[in-house]
């Protein structure tokens, strides 16, 4: 008897298997997770609590409900992945999954490739993930195969070593969809290797910023400062959802108060999420930034608080964020126009806008600066599975609509 493939399974069954596998990975003592954790720690140097936090966020977010919500929001229903559904117009539509999808994570953001791969699988596509942190994706795919053998042929994890694997030429030219995460050069190189009909979905490097309203400044307390600082310091500020600069609205003197609260929060964050291993280059860059900030504070004035593990610096509208671990840049503004002008002047591609309250003004600001997400401080690093990462749909890239009349 022929082995079942994903095409033979109802989409809800696939979702169920994925959710079951994710549930097993929520256990920090699950052996494949333990191995993946060790591999990530050795490779990236993040401290154990940081990696555990990342994996918890990832796997607690992968639920049947979350997947179904995302799919339904985009396609109308989960069942439309199984075959044509007759609509009122009498035109049937089938969101038929593509044959092959390739997901490339050319940088080592923990687990970034996994959600895209899982949505491809929900669409019943076969997927190859090329990932530097292959222990995580490979381990999860093994768990999926334990849930149902159809995944063993449909979900393949291979290491990405910078684009030199000869198999990639065939992969990229024959894939229906290539999703790629990486720096500009990596994306350009991958795009250049895709076939003419390949759907290419790039996720380039981006920045995230925050804006504290005047009321947010007034209400900022230790708990709220902890939330904001976690957004900035987690993963050494190296994620596209990391808070890279915080704009502080308000009266003179507000900034010093904010800086002081953030510095204290930075010290607490360092206990919860200890700094891991950094390259000498990174350490030197941080030290250089700290020295320069101290010099600027001494010669021009402005806030500068160095806690040893974090440095809170009063930034200026004239300088882009430093993009350095442990750097909390606060920039005084008189209103949202300053934020928009800053983003335009520095040509920042903004991923998320963190705010103290998601109100119409915050949404308007997010739209003005081209952000693809506006959210509360403390949730920036915890995007929902159904969210449109990079402003892109989740499952749509992996289906081709087949209309029946």
């Amino acid at each position: 008897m022929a082995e079942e493939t994903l095409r033979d399974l109802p989409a809800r069954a696939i979702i169920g298997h994925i959710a079951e596998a994710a549930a097993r990975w929520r256990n920090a003592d699950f052996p494949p997770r333990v191995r993946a954790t060790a591999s990530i720690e050795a490779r990236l140097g993040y401290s154990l609590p940081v990696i555990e936090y990342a994996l918890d966020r990832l796997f607690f977010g992968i639920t049947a409900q979350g997947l179904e919500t995302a799919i339904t929001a985009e396609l109308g229903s989960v069942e439309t992945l199984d075959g044509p559904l007759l609509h009122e117009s009498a035109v049937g539509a089938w969101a038929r999954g593509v044959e092959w999808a390739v997901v490339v994570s050319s940088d080592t953001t923990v687990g970034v490739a996994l959600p895209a791969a899982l949505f491809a699988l929900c669409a019943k596509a076969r997927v190859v993930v090329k990932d530097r942190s292959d222990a995580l994706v490979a381990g999860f795919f093994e768990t999926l195969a334990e849930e149902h053998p159809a995944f063993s042929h449909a979900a393949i994890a291979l290491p990405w070593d910078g684009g030199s694997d000869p198999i990639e030429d065939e992969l990229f030219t024959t894939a229906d969809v290539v999703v790629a995460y990486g720096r500009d050069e990596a994306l350009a190189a991958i795009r250049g290797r895709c076939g003419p009909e390949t759907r290419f979905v790039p996720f380039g490097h981006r920045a995230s910023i925050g804006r504290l309203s005047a009321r947010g400044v007034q209400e900022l307390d230790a708990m709220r400062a902890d939330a904001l600082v976690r957004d900035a310091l987690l993963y050494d500020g190296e994620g596209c959802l990391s808070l890279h600069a915080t704009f502080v609205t308000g009266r003179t003197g507000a900034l010093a108060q904010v800086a002081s609260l953030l510095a204290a929060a930075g010290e607490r964050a360092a206990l919860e999420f200890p700094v891991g291993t950094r390259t000498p280059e990174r350490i030197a860059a941080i030290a250089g930034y700290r020295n320069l900030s101290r010099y600027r504070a001494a010669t021009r004035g402005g806030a500068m608080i160095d806690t040893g593990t974090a440095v809170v610096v009063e930034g200026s509208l004239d300088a882009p964020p430093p993009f350095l671990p442990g750097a909390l840049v606060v920039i005084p503004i008189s209103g949202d126009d300053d934020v928009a002008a800053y983003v335009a002047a520095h040509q920042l591609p903004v991923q998320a806008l963190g705010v103290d309250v998601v109100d119409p003004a915050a949404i308007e600001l997010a739209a003005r600066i081209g952000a693809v997400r506006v959210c509360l401080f403390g949730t920036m690093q915890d995007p929902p599975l159904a969210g449109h990462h990079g402003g892109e749909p989740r499952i749509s890239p992996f289906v081709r609509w087949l209309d029946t009349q």
Partner: protein
Amino acid sequence: MSDPAAALDARILAAIAAYALDDDAFLALAVDLFAYQIANNRPYAAFARSLGFDADRLPQSLEEIPAAPAAAFKEQRLATFPPQQCVLWFQTSGTTQGTGGRHEFDSPALYEAALLASFDRMMLADGQRLRYLLLVPDPRHHPHSSLGFMMDVVAEWRGDGEHGWYVSDDALALEPFLDDVQRACSEDRPVCLATTAFALVALLDALASASSTLSLPRGSRIMETGGFKGRSRIVQRDDLYREAAHRLGVPISMIVAEYGMTELSSQYYDALESRSVTEPRVKRAPPWLRSLVVDDQGRPVPDGIVGSIRHIDLANRGSVIAVDTEDLGAAVAGGLVLLGREPGAELRGCSLDAETLLRRRG
């Protein structure tokens, strides 16, 4: 020039001329220089004050001397004299950041004396009078290039009366260079090829594409300087030196790296005894220049441990005595070993970074 400045210059020039300065004498001169600078250089004085040092509390050791970050030269004028007394200035490149700054001088005397004294000992120990073939910025087109100025002084005072510049707007003038090499060969005149690492790569690429090798006259040497920051192509030093030796007919031991920066007035060179290998080479400072390798909190680290390099340059009389850099290195017996970027360093994260942002903005 003020009397205190002149008095300090006289002491520093004496040390340069003697090419000797023991630890106590270095510290004494350094502290006097620091006191002079905080009295005459307002930003540096403010910075020093923020670290707890002023005229009433002077540093007691080299480690205590406040080191201005190299990037501070881009922030504001860092000089001990009024702008109208500036007779020479060099443009700081700014590495990966956008704008540059200025390193100003109220006299070229210290700079010239320091560079010639070091060059004589580290490049011309055999006393040769060489012909200088210069693959560095031409001071006629780049009057504020410290490297161009330095090699112009060397060629003027130590050359054979003929020298040539072969880089213009980052492009290599290959034909004139080859013509002058040919002439030097026919005259059996040893040359010093002074070049940036990037220009050397361009030269070697051009020779390789023409399947050509040169045989520079016996006694010729190469002074290579600078890295590959901001360049699209990076060549490991070992490969570069081996290819240079092969294509130019110069022994590896006669290829010498100079390490300097616009924010300093003095230079390091490969120590004579480390030139038989390509890596690692020990960088040796002249007696009036010291380095400290420090951790991310600015504390000195033990020998052999990698950290950021801080320079204490007595020839920086007109600006700041101590400069913190983001260059990496380790102190070793007899000097300093510089560390380049780790080619295999793991990339982390999907955040924008400063270099990418700068590149995207053109």
